[in-house]
C-alpha cells in the first residue's frame, strides 16, 4: 500500500527542493497527510471508475536521489527537441542544464526549473503553486505535491508576446524510476505564449511519470499548450494540466497521446468572464495499452466559450476512456459550450468508455455534446477499394485520416510534422505513404 511509498520516501525528503521555505514544507506535510490517508486513486472513486492504478502500489517506483543522470543518450534526447524553441529538459524528474537551451530569453521572461525558482523567485512560486488546484484533490495530486523533485517554472510578464515557443521535454531513462514533477506557468495580462510538453522514455523501460502543470492566465492572456505523450510502451503516465483563466483569457490545449502502458490525462480549465477555451485530443492505443482522458471545464462567469473535440483510435485489446465534463455555473449566463468525442474501434476486443457530462445550472446558455463509437464505414472502404486500393491499405488510409484530422489542427508547423511522424510510426502500421501526404 501507500505506506510502503511513504516509508521508502522518508529518507529522500531531505533531497527535495525548497527545504528552506517553511510555507512549502507545510504544504508538503499537508499533502503527505492526505496521501497517507487516501493513497493512489481507487476505482471506487467516480472519476477513476474506468482506470485502475493499484498496480503502482505494488510496483513501488523509486525517485532517483542523484541529480546527475550520467547515462543519458544526448543524441536521442536531441531528436525529441523541436527546432526554433527554448527548451527545458527534465531527465528522470530533474532539471538537466546541459541539455536545455534557454539562452537569449527576452528581458523579464523567466524560464527555469522549480528548484532554481524556489531560490530566486520564492514569492512568485508561492503565488502560483496550488493556485490552479483550488477545486482539485485526489491521491495523485497529493503525491505530486508531497514529493515533486523539480519541474519547470515559466513566468511571462504582462503585455509580452513570446515570439518562440517553449518546450518542456520530460525524459525518462531509468527502469523502475519515478519522475515526479510540478510545473508552473504564469502569464501576465495580455501576455501570449506557446508551450509544448513532450513526454518520452527509453523504449522497453517501465517507469512512472507523474507530472502536474498549473497554468495561470491573467486578464486577456493567451496560451497555446501542447502535450505530446510518447512514453515507452511499458510506462505508467499520470499527467495533469490545470488552467485557471482570468477574464477574457484564451487557453488552447492539444492533448496527443500515443505511448505508455497506462496513461491518464487530466485537462481541467476554470473559466471566468468572456474566456475562450479549446480542448483538442487524440489518443491512439494498441496491444494492451490503456489510455484515459479526463477533461473538466468550469464556466463560472458569463460569456465564456468552450470547444472540445476528442478522438480515439483503439486496436487489439486496447482500452480507452473519455470522460468529459462541462459545468456551467449559475452565474455563467450566455455560455457557449460544445463537446464532441468520436472513437474508432479497430478490433472486436478493443474497448472504450465514453462519458460526456453537461451540468448546466444557468438558463441562458448554448451547450451541446455528442459522442460516437464505431468501426470504419464500409461504404468508404468499398469506395477506396473500387479504385484499386487493397482492403488493408484502404482501412489504414481511413484510420490515418480520422486521426490526422486532429493533427492538422496543430498550429505549430514543426510540431505538426513531428506528431504526424509519431502517428505514422505507431499507427496504422502499413499502407500510408509519407511522401504522398
Amino acid at each position: 500500500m501507500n505506506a510502503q511509498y511513504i516509508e521508502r520516501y522518508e529518507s529522500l525528503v531531505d533531497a527535495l527542493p525548497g527545504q528552506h521555505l517553511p510555507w512549502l514544507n507545510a504544504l508538503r506535510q499537508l499533502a503527505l497527510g492526505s496521501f497517507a490517508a487516501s493513497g493512489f486513486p481507487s476505482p471506487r472513486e467516480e472519476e477513476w471508475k474506468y482506470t485502475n492504478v493499484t498496480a503502482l502500489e505494488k510496483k513501488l517506483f523509486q525517485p532517483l536521489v542523484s541529480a546527475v543522470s550520467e547515462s543519458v543518450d544526448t543524441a536521442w534526447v536531441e531528436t525529441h527537441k523541436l527546432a526554433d524553441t527554448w527548451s527545458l529538459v527534465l531527465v528522470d524528474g530533474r532539471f538537466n542544464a546541459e541539455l536545455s537551451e534557454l539562452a537569449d530569453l527576452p528581458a523579464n521572461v523567466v524560464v527555469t526549473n522549480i528548484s532554481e525558482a524556489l531560490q530566486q523567485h520564492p514569492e512568485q512560486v508561492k503565488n502560483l503553486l496550488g493556485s490552479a488546484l483550488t477545486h482539485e484533490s485526489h491521491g495523485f495530486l497529493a503525491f505530486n505535491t508531497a514529493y515533486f523533485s523539480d519541474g519547470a517554472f515559466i513566468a511571462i510578464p504582462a503585455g509580452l508576446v513570446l515570439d518562440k515557443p517553449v518546450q518542456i521535454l520530460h525524459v525518462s531513462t531509468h527502469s523502475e524510476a519515478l519522475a515526479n514533477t510540478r510545473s508552473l506557468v504564469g502569464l501576465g495580462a495580455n501576455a501570449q505564449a506557446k508551450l509544448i510538453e513532450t513526454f518520452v522514455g527509453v523504449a522497453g523501460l517501465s517507469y512512472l511519470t507523474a507530472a502536474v502543470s498549473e497554468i495561470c492566465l491573467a486578464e486577456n492572456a493567451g496560451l497555446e499548450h501542447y502535450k505530446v505523450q510518447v512514453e515507452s510502451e511499458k510506462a505508467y503516465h499520470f499527467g495533469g494540466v490545470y488552467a485557471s483563466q482570468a477574464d477574457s483569457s484564451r487557453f488552447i490545449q492539444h492533448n496527443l497521446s500515443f505511448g505508455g502502458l497506462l496513461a491518464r490525462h487530466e485537462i481541467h480549465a476554470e473559466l471566468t468572464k468572456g474566456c475562450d477555451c479549446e480542448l483538442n485530443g487524440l489518443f491512439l492505443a494498441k496491444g494492451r495499452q490503456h489510455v484515459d482522458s479526463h477533461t473538466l471545464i468550469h464556466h463560472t462567469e458569463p460569456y465564456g466559450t468552450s470547444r472540445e473535440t476528442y478522438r480515439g483510435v483503439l486496436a487489439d485489446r486496447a482500452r480507452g476512456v473519455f470522460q468529459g465534463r462541462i459545468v456551467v455555473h449559475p452565474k455563467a449566463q450566455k455560455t457557449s459550450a460544445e463537446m464532441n468525442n468520436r472513437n474508432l474501434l479497430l478490433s472486436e476486443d478493443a474497448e472504450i468508455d465514453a462519458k460526456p457530462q453537461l451540468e448546466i445550472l444557468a438558463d441562458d446558455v448554448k451547450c451541446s455534446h455528442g459522442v460516437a463509437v464505431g468501426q470504419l464505414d464500409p461504404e468508404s472502404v468499398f469506395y477506396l477499394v473500387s479504385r484499386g486500393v487493397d482492403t488493408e491499405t484502404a482501412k489504414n488510409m481511413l484510420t490515418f485520416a480520422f486521426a490526422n484530422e486532429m493533427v492538422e489542427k496543430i498550429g505549430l508547423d514543426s510540431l505538426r510534422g513531428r506528431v504526424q511522424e509519431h502517428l505514422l510510426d505507431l499507427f496504422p502500421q502499413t499502407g500510408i505513404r509519407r511522401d504522398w501526404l
Partner: protein
Amino acid sequence: MLKIENLHVRVDDKPILKGITLHVKPGEVHAIMGPNGSGKSTLSHILAGRDGYEVTSGTVTYQGKNLLEMPPEERAREGVFLAFQYPVEIPGVSNVYLLKAALNAVRKHRGLPELDAIDFLKMIKQKIKLVEMDEKFLYRAVNEGFSGGEKKRNEILQMAVLEPKLCILDETDSGLDIDALKVVSDGVNSLRSADRSFILVTHYQRLLDYIKPDHVHVLAQGRIVKSGDASLALELEERGYGWIDQTVSVAA
C-alpha cells in the same frame, strides 16, 4: 469485353435481377435505362464487386475472365471503373492522395513503375482540365463539402486518371444542372476510344443527348425487356416507361 449471361441476383432473399444477358464489345457505349427499382443500380454494383448481393445463377465474363470471382480491387486494377451515383465523402484523405494510391496500385498491377511526383503532377493538371475543375480540389478531402456536380466531376476525373477499359456510370447525370451535365459528358466523350467501353445507367434520356449510345436497353423488373439503338431512348422519352411496364405484365 464484357459478357453477362442469364444473371440472377438476390438481395436479402429478394430477387432483383432475373436473368440479364448483355454483351458489350470494345469501344461500344451501352445505355441501360429503366424506371426506379428496376435493378439498374444493382447491376452496376454487382459489376464493381460490392458485397451484399447474392448471385444465384448466371455468369459475368470480363476479358475472358470470371469477373464475379475477382475481389473489387482486382476488378479496378483490371480496368473496371464504377462512377458512383452517390460518391462517398472521405474526410482527411486528400483527393490527390487517393489518386496517387489508386493510380499506382493500378500501374503496379500492370507491371508499370510508380509515377514520380513531377510526372504525376503534369498528368493530373492535364486531366483536371477535362472536367473543368479548379486545381485546389486536388488538395481538398475526397468529396468533402463538394456540391453534387463537383462530386460527379470528381468521379470522371478519377476515371480519366485510371484509364479503365470498362466504365460504368451509375446515374451520373442525376442531380446535375445542364452546364455540369455538359462538362461531365464532354469528359466522358473525350475518353471514348476503340478499346474502351461504357455502360451508362440512367433514368433519363437527357444524358444521351450528349453521349451518343450504340445500344440502348430497357431494364424493368429485373429483366432487359427491350433493346435497340439510340432511337429507343427517344421513344422512351416520348412515351415514358408506362408502356414498358404494360409490355412486361403482358409477357408475365
